[in-house]
């Protein structure tokens, strides 16, 4: 095992610490709910033909980005795959701009030229949105390289899936990230499936994060259905990177409720399996119960939040329908930056 594996990683698992304020709990509830409602709406707009192509929903995985964003500081960077809507909302990008990109309109973050899989925000340090499985991993290490080169203490969150974890470039990147002590948190969002292939059918490795040990990279496994545990592990990872110790791997165990993309026949897992996760492990329900049982919020308080989120999402959907398609001369812009 990695010599510098930090405590408390003896079992590779972390327990949630309940050192979180009621306000922060409410914030988690609100942010996770925003992602879920946004994605449900996106699925609906897809069904209406307003969103085309590939559209990968994040429903079920909300605690991962919300927990990790809670561990990030201003100026930290993030990059992910095509399953990116949740990451954008969690880092503060505007729901209207994201939804309008899904519908391919000028008001979208990429003026309608990127689509669901390709969105960016310099302002929020969100570097995409990448459609090639695994390609964002060296890119993320490169972003971390740029911060290290400049001598600041920024950290880059580089998200990828359990399927992407079998790409060679991930391990090329692990090697250099550790060699050069790059401040990058590799976040493996292990939702247990790569399209229709379960982790058990794609690898004999018992755990994905432990592969980092071969390169000397520290890491741990995290319960990705528990936003508090995610935040806790995220803080540990960030502290490690900021201290200049190099990269850190978080394998976050999560689950996607919906199909891989909108056109997934879902024949590779049972309905009972999905139902079980939804009913017993749902991350939003978990926080909801913490709020209610802890006396931090009443049903009415939560209803008010639900309403607030619904309004944001409806407004985003309206905007995404009303925003015009890009003017036709946009076909020829943004191919080259002016020299």
């Amino acid at each position, binding site marked *: 095992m990695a010599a510098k594996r930090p405590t408390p990683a003896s079992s590779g698992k972390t327990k949630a610490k309940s050192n979180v304020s009621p306000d922060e709990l409410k914030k988690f509830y609100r942010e996770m709910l925003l992602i879920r409602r946004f994605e*449900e709406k996106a699925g609906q707009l897809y069904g209406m033909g307003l969103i085309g192509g590939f559209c990968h929903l994040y429903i079920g995985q909300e605690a991962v980005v919300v927990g990790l964003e809670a561990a990030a500081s201003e100026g930290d960077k993030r990059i992910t795959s095509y399953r990116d809507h949740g990451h954008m909302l969690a880092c503060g990008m505007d729901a209207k701009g994201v939804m309008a990109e899904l519908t391919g309109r000028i008001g*979208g973050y990429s003026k309608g030229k*990127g689509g669901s899989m390709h969105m960016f925000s310099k302002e929020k340090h969100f570097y995409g949105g*990448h459609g090639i499985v695994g390609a964002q991993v060296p890119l993320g290490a*490169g972003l971390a390289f740029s911060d290290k080169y400049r001598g600041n203490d920024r950290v880059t969150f580089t998200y990828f899936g359990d399927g992407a974890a079998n790409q060679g470039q991930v391990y090329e990147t692990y090697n250099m990230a550790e060699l050069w002590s790059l401040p990058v948190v590799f976040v493996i969002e292990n939702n247990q499936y790569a399209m229709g292939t379960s982790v058990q059918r794609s690898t004999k490795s018992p755990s994905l994060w432990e592969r980092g040990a071969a390169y000397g990279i520290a890491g741990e496994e995290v319960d990705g259905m528990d936003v508090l545990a995610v935040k806790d592990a995220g803080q540990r990872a960030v502290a490690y990177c900021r201290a200049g110790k190099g990269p850190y791997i978080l394998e976050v165990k999560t689950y996607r409720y919906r199909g891989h993309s909108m056109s997934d026949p879902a024949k590779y897992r049972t309905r009972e399996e999905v139902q079980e996760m939804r009913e017993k492990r749902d991350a939003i329900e978990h926080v909801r119960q913490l709020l209610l049982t802890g006396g931090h919020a009443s049903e009415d308080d939560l209803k008010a939040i639900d309403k607030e989120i619904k309004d944001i999402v409806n407004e985003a959907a309206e905007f995404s329908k009303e925003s015009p398609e890009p003017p036709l001369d946009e076909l020829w812009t943004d191919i*080259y930056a002016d020299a």
Partner: protein
Amino acid sequence: MATEILMPALSPTMEEGTLAKWLVKEGDTVQAGDILAEIETDKATMEFEAVDEGVIGKILVPEGTEGVKVNTTIAIIGEAGEDMSATPAAASPAPAAPVAEAAPAAPVAAAPVAPVADQGPDWPEGTPMKTQTVREALRDAMAEEMRVNDNVFLMGEEVGEYQGAYKISQGLLDEFGAKRVIDTPITEHGFAGIAVGAAFGGLNPIVEFMTFNFAMQAIDQIINSAAKTLYMSGGQMGCPIVFRGPNGAAARVGAQHSQDYAAWYAHIPGLKVVQPYTAADAKGLLKQAIRDPNPVIFLENEILYGKTFEVPDLPDFTIPFGKAKIARAGDDVTLVSFGIGMTYAMEAAERLAAEGISAEVIDLRTLRPLDYGTVLASVQKTNRCVTIEEGFPVASIGNHISAYLMQNAFDYLDAPVINCTGKDVPMPYAANLEKLALVTTDEVVAAVKSVTYR
């Protein structure tokens, strides 16, 4: 409030489907996420989930119905106790997007341009010159740019302590240190991706590929990440990076180490592609490439590294992209080439002159952007054209120039354009076969005689 449930589009190509089975009935209360129905598309049977909670009021399309168009109302959902008996008159189509304005003229890569050769001098008249190898010129270009911009760094295999596999980075580690002259492990895909990420992060990486043959390991990061991100981000995220290294056949290194990638990279919108011949061009164009805010593919050639040329003795000069050079003026035929192809073109022009044929030789220097104006002006004068390159013949740079001339100078051509290229075979090792596989000066001379009917 009652809402209509519409027949969903469940794949990127679905227009209609079969409502195979209802899993709810009228009066059922459903939660968001509950499965409402099974729908058969052209590809699969899919489950269709409720997006909101409510009570199923009316089912309008019975199960088993085939050919249900996307966006047809298939059921009504509302709140408990609500009257939902009123059936909507017709399917409500999804709102169409507001219409965009009329299409502007398309600036296609090979759109007609004015037949103008911009032959302003690359440096002021009377500039003192010095003799340099291409190798030294490339090194000086990097060193000069690294001195003025701290964000420029060099990364690649053996660029530091080894001083460069082909000694292009000689002395750079000493001058700039290991922070800016970075030896990488042998991991092209990985370090190309890291460099692209660093460019997204605002740095100006120079990535040296030991040779461009190995850049195929990194091609995804070059094309999909470096070249396309500016567009995909609506102009937000540029990638100021240079990928450089020797390209094309060296000598006797066999098929896997001897390929010219000019046409591959020139194919890609979002990349700029440079292939210099002389040391002065190598220096001026590399400095320009390092300053350019876009990804630049800079194709060098091992055989040219040791060749000497006159280079302006100036503290700073650059050569703009998209400006071809008339390397030799002539009237009877236009020879278009670039990089090491220029060796054959210039030799052929010399031999042809002895036979009384005056050839104009154009060195394209950059393949993207390509200086169509200079080629066009020359062909309008000579009415004949031969292209020369070492790359494979199919979908070559010469093919593209031929097509361009056919479309834009058809009435000026007195003969079909001939493309002299490498042969359509993997590079053989045997000395005699290797020679045969490359383009030869004899072939260029023969092509010129053919187009001039001599």
